[in-house]
């Protein structure tokens, strides 16, 4: 149970960098006067970010992961959150076993 000073410094640096990104939006928010088109782009931020984070594991890992992604996407059209997670996990185990 030790803390290396250099590691601690790195963690603090990461924490500050992260917090800056998290509160920067506060300063930005009031100043944006959005056109309908910009509003549409703004509304697209959530799905764009979520997809950008998972795309490597979904599309660039292997066929089993890509197939499980398709299964989860299909499940997402009719199942609640946890159901989609269950389908995705079961599918990836199954497809990996096949491959």
């Amino acid at each position, binding site marked *: 149970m030790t803390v290396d000073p250099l590691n601690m410094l*790195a963690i603090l640096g990461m924490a500050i960098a992260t917090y800056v990104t998290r509160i920067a939006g506060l300063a930005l928010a009031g100043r944006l006067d959005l056109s309908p088109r910009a509003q549409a782009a703004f509304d697209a931020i959530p799905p764009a970010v*979520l*997809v950008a984070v998972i*795309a490597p594991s979904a599309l660039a890992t292997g066929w089993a992961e890509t197939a499980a992604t398709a299964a989860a996407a299909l499940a997402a059209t009719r199942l609640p959150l946890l159901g989609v997670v269950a389908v995705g996990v079961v599918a990836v185990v199954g497809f990996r076993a096949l491959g």
Partner: protein
Amino acid sequence: MSTLWDDARRGFGDIWPAMLAAVPIGLLFGALAAGKGLSPLEVMIMGALVFAGGAQFAAVELWATPAPIGALVFSTLLINARHVLMGASIAPKLQGFSRGQKLLGLYYMADENWALAEKRARTHRLTPAYWFGMLAPFVACWITTSTLGAIVGAALGDPRRFGADFAFTALFIALVAAFWKGRVTFWTVAAAGLASALTYRFVGPPWHVLAGALCGLAAAWIAAGDREGAVAEPAKP
């Protein structure tokens, strides 16, 4: 008073599936960090102070002795750059929050709780009780499981055997579905997914997050524009 409690409970009710999905991720993170020589205490401190899963995974990937501080901070900044847009989008919806509540609440804004808050804001007013009811158990869960992962470490075995590594991906797919708004979302998702996967392949992390997010926004901008052109004419007499 009772609405306060109701809102906090509703926050917990919304976050728990994400919390459950984060359990194997936290354990996996702790185990990987321990493999790079981080102590359980260091993992715990990182979870409590940084609280950013994607950035923490990338950092552990980069970690060495002595710690490459510059590279770690830059990678964290890049992966978390999306928070600027997320914060700008959620900030106007935090009307009932005091300044202190905003500053503390945003400290722990992560993809999952932010996405759920955005979803909630579409139909309800966001309250601090809801926000913190969602945040507190989620943060506690991340710190606990990642620390536990660092302690248990190698004894856990390969999380891929249980498909646990895919829980995160499946969870995000479900969250994307909650934001579905038809054609514009389709083009957003297609562009963001393709750009992110290609950037990951040919440039490498952490650039894929930035590239994917920006291409998704550009696609939404383009798709929304031609819809306006096509629909505006007959719709307005």
